[in-house]
């Protein structure tokens, strides 16, 4: 039964090959779209079957390894292509294929008429394959294949409209930026992998974690490995300091932003930490850094989101901020809470992006929310689903975001410190504010676009149905993890508990008996969300005259946020420009032209000079040669005899 997992991966691969090889010939968008999303849907069904099969098994029999074939066998390194099907990976598989399927269906409508229709679907299927390899890998090397694979697909899809302009450059530049920034992280991951092999003599998850358990907590090698893994995670999951690529990744088509840059790929870093929970639990110092990075990113990105005007840009910063929450959860050892937030975030953030796509579609490629407004009567379905998602992300009960975010905040307070909780709470109020600023400026009020030129209209069925499905999921998604304190069973927690048992045992986290503080914190965070929503509604709808006053009063802060804390500029000055300068002046004109070319050309010149002289030896008279010949033989004979 569990062996079916191979087909979960192979089906999208078939879709990729089919659309990639034949798509251009078929010319039928219907066939391409049906195959492209159909294979992902089938994958989802198979994964669901496996999930229910696992549900029926006793807990200790649930994790299984499905061997495919031996991949690399060199000396002591023995790597299998094998899929690890356990509670954690099957959850990710369900998210990837489920949300992936919905977004594929949405793309059928969204990408209609695009000349690269088949290309889009084949890339998307390839992405699903790579992501599934990533989450199902049973060793670090195969994991890395998936890790790089999703990076590649991300690159291909960000630059999908490669001839289109994006901000000051082209989408290709945005794609390059994403790829190069990710390489920094990948480098960290690669070195970590080498260190793991040196330390543990294996790359297999099972044996590495078993051997790691024998080490003492806080071993230097463990801290080094986990720090390097963290660098990898910050690259892929867009955390400080490597988050700069994600806002630019919005250059790609909107379904790509929804699938890759919100719901699935960017959570790979979080998944990796969850997968290596034992290694991280054994390195408390790294855990502290993970938590702080997450908390800082959550507030940092949310504050930038406050003032941006691009609809997708705001959502991008929101994604960074929410990923920060997941890192915060991982950092305080609340792995389940982090995975729970990953699940609910996949629902509501995908929904927000798809909703934004519907708006952009309706506004004829307009992305600036300052030139929108009053769209709710033109796009009723989009409006309703968007508000559901916004409420969910803001953390209003009983929507999904409330449960997951609250569990993170509570764990941050309980197992971390008041500082982490404070950052989380601050992030929550900012989130509520920027989300409803977005909702109000887009859908409420009066139109600020030119009604003579733009005629907003609701999106086709293939786009609205996915919105509705995701809206339902955003509402009920939280019910999988209602905490005990609210009378729920925390189903997700129970499901994932065996996976994280090892890490929890090492960390010996306190289990609180009294729920009083939890209730207070819960009430507090809901109140904060309400304040944020009310504030946005007040400033952007009811009393617009407040806005210019606020802006001029805090001009400095506003400028800082508007320019995204000048991070891009700082990186430009400190890294990009020096790299270019060094590359051009030193490496190109210095090293390449002078040293390398000089050496190669110099050798050639020396040889040609020597030849000019030595060729005179060849006079063309056969007898001269014969004399040399005989002389040589005589010399050899003399040497042999004497």
């Amino acid at each position, binding site marked *: 039964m569990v062996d079916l997992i191979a087909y979960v991966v192979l089906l999208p691969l078939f879709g990729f090959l089919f659309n990639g090889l034949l798509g251009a010939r078929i010319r039928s968008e219907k066939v391409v779209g049906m195959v492209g999303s159909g294979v992902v849907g089938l994958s989802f069904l198979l994964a669901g079957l496996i999930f229910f099969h696992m549900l029926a098994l006793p807990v200790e029999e649930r994790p299984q390894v499905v061997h495919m074939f031996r991949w690399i066998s060199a000396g002591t390194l023995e790597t299998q292509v094998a899929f690890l099907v356990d509670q954690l990976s099957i959850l990710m598989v369900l998210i990837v294929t489920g949300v992936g399927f919905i977004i594929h269906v949405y793309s059928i409508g969204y990408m209609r008429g695009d000349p690269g229709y088949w290309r889009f679907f084949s890339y998307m299927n390839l992405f699903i394959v790579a992501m599934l390899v990533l989450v199902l890998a049973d060793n670090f090397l195969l994991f890395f294949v998936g890790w790089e694979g999703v990076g590649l697909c991300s690159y291909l899809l960000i630059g999908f409209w490669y001839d289109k302009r994006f901000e000051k450059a082209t989408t290709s530049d945005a794609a390059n930026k994403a790829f190069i920034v990710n390489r920094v992280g990948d480098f960290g991951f690669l070195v970590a992998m080498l260190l793991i092999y040196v330390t543990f003599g294996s790359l297999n998850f099972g044996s590495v974690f078993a051997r790691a358990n024998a080490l003492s907590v806080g071993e230097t090698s463990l801290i080094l490995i986990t720090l390097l893994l963290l660098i990898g995670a910050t690259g892929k999951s867009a955390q400080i300091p490597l988050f700069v690529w994600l806002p630019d990744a919005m250059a790609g088509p909107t379904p790509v932003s929804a699938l890759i840059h919100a719901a699935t790929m960017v959570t790979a870093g979080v998944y990796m930490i969850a997968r290596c929970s034992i290694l991280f639990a054994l390195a408390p110092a790294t855990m502290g850094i993970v938590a702080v990075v997450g908390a800082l990113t959550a507030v940092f990105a949310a504050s930038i989101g406050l003032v941006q005007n691009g609809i997708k840009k705001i959502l991008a910063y929101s994604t960074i901020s929410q990923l920060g929450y997941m890192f915060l959860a991982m950092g305080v050892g609340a792995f389940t809470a982090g995975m729970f937030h990953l699940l609910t975030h996949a629902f509501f953030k995908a929904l927000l992006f798809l909703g934004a796509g519907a708006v952009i579609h309706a506004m004829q490629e307009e992305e600036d929310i300052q030139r929108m407004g009053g769209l709710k009567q033109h796009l009723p379905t989009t409006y309703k689903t968007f508000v559901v998602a916004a409420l969910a992300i803001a953390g209003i009960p009983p929507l999904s975001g409330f449960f997951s975010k609250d569990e993170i905040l509570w764990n941050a307070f309980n197992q971390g410190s008041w500082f982490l909780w404070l950052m989380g709470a601050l992030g929550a109020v900012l989130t509520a504010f920027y989300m409803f600023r977005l909702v109000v400026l887009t859908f409420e009020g009066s139109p600020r676009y030119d009604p003579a030129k733009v005629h907003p209209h609701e999106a086709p069925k293939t786009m609205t149905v996915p919105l509705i499905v995701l809206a339902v999921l955003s509402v009920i998604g939280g019910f999988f993890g209602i905490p005990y304190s609210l009378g729920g069973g925390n189903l997700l927690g129970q499901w994932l508990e065996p996976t994280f048992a090892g890490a929890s045992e090492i960390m010996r986290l306190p289990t609180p008996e009294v729920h009083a503080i939890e209730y207070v914190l819960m009430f507090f965070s809901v109140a904060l969300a309400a304040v944020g929503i009310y504030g946005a509604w007040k400033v952007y709808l009811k009393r617009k005259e407040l806005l210019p006053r606020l802006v001029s009063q805090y001009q400095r802060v506003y400028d800082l946020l508007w320019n995204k804390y000048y991070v891009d500029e700082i990186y430009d000055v400190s890294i990009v420009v020096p790299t270019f300068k060094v590359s051009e002046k030193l490496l190109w004109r210095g090293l390449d032209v002078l040293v390398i070319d000089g050496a190669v050309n110099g050798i050639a010149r020396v040889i040609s000079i020597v030849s000019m002289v030595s060729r*005179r030896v060849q*006079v*063309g*008279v*056969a*007898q001269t040669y*014969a004399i040399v010949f*005989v002389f040589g033989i005589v010399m050899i004979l003399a040497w042999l005899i004497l």
Partner: protein
Amino acid sequence: MIPLNYYLALSALLFTIGVVGVLTRRNVIIVFMCIELMLNSVNLSLIGFSAFRGDATGQILVFFVMVVAAAEAAVGLAIIIAVFRNKQTVNIDEINILKW
């Protein structure tokens, strides 16, 4: 019975004459003949050894050498004729185009 040394001395003498001829004479045909002389001097020493050791292998080898030499003589003379038709000379100093 003539001692082996006599054969070897004659062979060495013929070989040396051949080498000197190849190196000093200018007429291609004579050079060519000198090469043949060298070949046959070697044949002579082979036969000498063969008779001395009472082993027929050397004589068999000589037959092979003679067959090859016959073929080589045909090819060599053909080349000389071809060169002569082109350059109207058999002087080896004037056939010197094989150079830089």
